[in-house]
């Protein structure tokens, strides 16, 4: 039923809004400062993500304005380099990662019937580390102009390739702000990941075996495992870089026999699994939304679990597909190209299973589902361009071109951001007790969809026509002008859509339709408690005998455990 049902589990009290018990604005602020509650921290992570999204989005707008036409004069070259570095770094580490942790923090304990995370104070510690790391990076705009007049913010691109980052080529301290802020935030990510994994392994409610866990929890688990394995390589490389810049170590210094390529290996050993860390929770969201809005259980749950684990595993072996053009030998190139193509198999399995879930189902085109369907189309294209780039000779032509930019923005924006929007429309009612406004949501959806495609579809073309990455302007008459102009116009549509969305988030907090426990008639445990949940989450937990405990409760004549 579209109106939602209320499950009579126990006598639930109407829970207070965060901070209500403290009464005042100061009280509300202190509540957030001191909280160790996973729900509040989850919301704070997501709030952090949106805050930095606005910052990095404004940077993107300037990038697009500068590139809208040839011979742009909006910003100078050094500023432009700073903008692209900061845009990329912030979007990955302080927008996408906080979304991953925010969703995991909010949803996972509720989905497994736990009272909170395993280590609530560590949870708060992880959040504040993440937040302060971001502040440290933004502080570089104020503090980093070095003695030699080099740019304030880091301007070495988000992958900070050696030897550009050596003291000789990056005097001043902007690179150090990049390294240190990521070391701080990386530590927060690792501790957060350990916390989430222990929670999932040790705090599941009775009857909830690993094989009955919701897919959002499963995929968060795999993502967290990738975090603890693959953020340390980034930290290690940054420690080496800082030792080189300050103590004269020679790790990446060719004049001492060192290898700049070693930096790239270490960075991408981190960097590739990192993007899977970002995308796996997005898969989790889609795996929750598609079944509920197709009124059918997910097709092939065991295959989905196996595919997720396999993707996590294979993602650790494909990193050098970012390095096809640096001069590796044929054996290495072949190995990494092969592994990159292989990873498309489990990913394809997931795509087919989502489609199979929809097939024969009763599709409800509510907002979470609209974003999920857009995800399916866009992630498919993103995956296909990824496979194209995985074929090494193709990459030899298109590496470092706008085709690559188009590919990864298709994954990250067309895939992950759309999934994050779906997650908001799906779980906001649970978190705040109110539905997000549907009309505003539709405006947001269509504006953002159109904007996204206007921006990133033409970049495939300009990339194929030879436009390189990281150039601050270009000459007219190369055939790139029109595509760049369309791309910039799309940015404005996306910005407008995002503004409407943020407005919706705020407006609906007070004026949204009251949601009730289970507005979407869903089946996982988070819908078995009040919206918003009480501080302690569950007064009484339903018995878990299958993957859809609430279905069993609502349909005692036809329970899932008869079929599993």
């Amino acid at each position: 039923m579209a109106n939602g049902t209320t499950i009579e589990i126990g006598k639930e009290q109407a829970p207070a809004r965060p901070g209500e018990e403290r009464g005042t604005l100061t009280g509300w602020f202190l509540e957030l400062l001191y909280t160790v509650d996973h729900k509040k921290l989850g919301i704070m992570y997501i709030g952090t993500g949106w805050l930095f999204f606005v910052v990095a989005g404004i940077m993107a707008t300037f990038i697009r304005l500068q590139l809208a036409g040839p011979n742009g004069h909006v910003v100078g070259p050094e500023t432009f380099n700073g903008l692209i570095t900061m845009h990329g770094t912030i979007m990955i580490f302080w927008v996408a990662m906080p979304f991953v942790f925010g969703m995991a923090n909010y949803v996972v304990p509720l989905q497994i019937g736990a009272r909170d995370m395993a280590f609530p104070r560590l949870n708060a510690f992880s959040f504040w580390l993440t937040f302060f790391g971001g502040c440290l990076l933004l502080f570089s705009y104020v503090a980093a102009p070095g003695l030699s007049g080099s740019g304030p913010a880091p301007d070495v691109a988000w992958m900070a390739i050696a030897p550009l980052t050596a003291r000789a080529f990056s005097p001043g301290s902007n690179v150090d702000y990049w390294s240190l802020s990521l070391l701080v935030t990386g530590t927060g990510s690792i501790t957060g990941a350990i916390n989430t994994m222990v929670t999932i392994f040790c705090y599941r409610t009775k009857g909830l075996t690993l094989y009955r866990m919701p897919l959002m929890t499963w995929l968060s688990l795999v993502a967290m495992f990738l975090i603890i394995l693959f953020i340390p390589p980034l930290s290690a490389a940054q420690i080496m870089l800082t030792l080189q810049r300050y103590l004269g170590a020679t790790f990446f210094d060719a004049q001492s026999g060192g290898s700049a390529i070693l930096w790239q290996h270490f960075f991408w050993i981190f960097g590739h699994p990192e993007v899977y860390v970002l995308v796996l929770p997005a898969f989790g969201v889609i795996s929750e939304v598609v079944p509920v809005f197709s009124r059918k259980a997910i097709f092939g749950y065991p295959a989905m679990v196996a595919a997720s684990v396999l993707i996590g595993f294979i993602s650790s072996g494909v990193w050098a597909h970012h390095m096809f053009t640096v001069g590796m030998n044929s054996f290495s190139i072949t190995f990494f190209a092969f592994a990159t193509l292989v990873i498309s198999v489990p990913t394809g399995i997931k795509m087919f299973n989502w489609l199979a879930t929809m097939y024969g189902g009763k599709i409800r085109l509510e907002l979470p589902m609209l974003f999920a369907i857009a995800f399916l189309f866009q992630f498919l294209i993103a995956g296909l361009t990824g496979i194209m780039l995985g074929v090494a000779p193709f990459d030899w032509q298109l590496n470092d071109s706008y085709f690559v930019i188009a590919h990864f923005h298709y994954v990250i924006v067309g895939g992950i951001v759309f999934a994050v929007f779906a997650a908001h429309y799906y779980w906001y009612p649970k978190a705040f007790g109110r539905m997000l406004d549907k009309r505003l949501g539709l405006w947001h959806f269509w504006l953002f969809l159109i904007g996204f495609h206007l921006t990133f579809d033409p970049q495939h073309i300009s990339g194929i026509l030879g436009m390189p990455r990281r150039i601050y302007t270009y000459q007219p008459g190369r055939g790139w002008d029109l595509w760049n102009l369309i791309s910039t116009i799309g940015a404005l549509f996306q910005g407008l859509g995002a503004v409407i969305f943020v407005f919706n988030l705020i407006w609906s907090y007070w004026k949204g339709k009251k949601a009730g426990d289970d507005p979407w008639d869903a089946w996982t445990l988070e819908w078995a408690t009040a919206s918003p949940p009480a501080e302690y989450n569950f007064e009484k937990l339903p018995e878990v005998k299958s993957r859809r405990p609430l279905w069993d409760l609502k349909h005692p004549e036809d329970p899932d455990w008869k079929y599993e």
Partner: protein
Amino acid sequence: MVLVITTESALFIIFVVAYLFYIGKSLIPPYPHQVLEFPWLGSILLFGSSGTIMVAERHLKRGAIDRFHLWWAITLACGVGFLIWTISEWLKLIYKDGLTIATNLFGSTFYSLVGLHASHVLVGAILLSIILVASLRGKIRHRHHEHIEIISWYWHFVDCVWAVVVTVVYIISVKS
């Protein structure tokens, strides 16, 4: 703790890879075989401390708190002894042999890897001290033996890393 050990292992592996990759690639001396002596004292201290910590744990499990204190203190002393030995080795390398982190690839990778390990020994020593002080004040009893076991896993992990460092640095790179 298993997860902490996993993530720390990932960190160490990168430094080990860097060390292995750069074996034989330093352009100027000093080279490993010229300045490194097999770390007998340090290894005996550290590997021994893994044994003494197990003895301490066994005493705690049986409720023999005084013996637990004794063997735990011995373990801590071995850890501190290892750190002192490391300092003396580094003083020799820096001032007698002229090997610093900036000298060559060997220096960079040696000091970063061994230094990372030593910093983990230091953290372990701090953990052991906290436990010792808490126990002497009467806060740790037989019923806490599982918590203490988890701390000892960290200490064993630091020991295993030293085994890897000895193999890679003092055996492989000296023979190459």
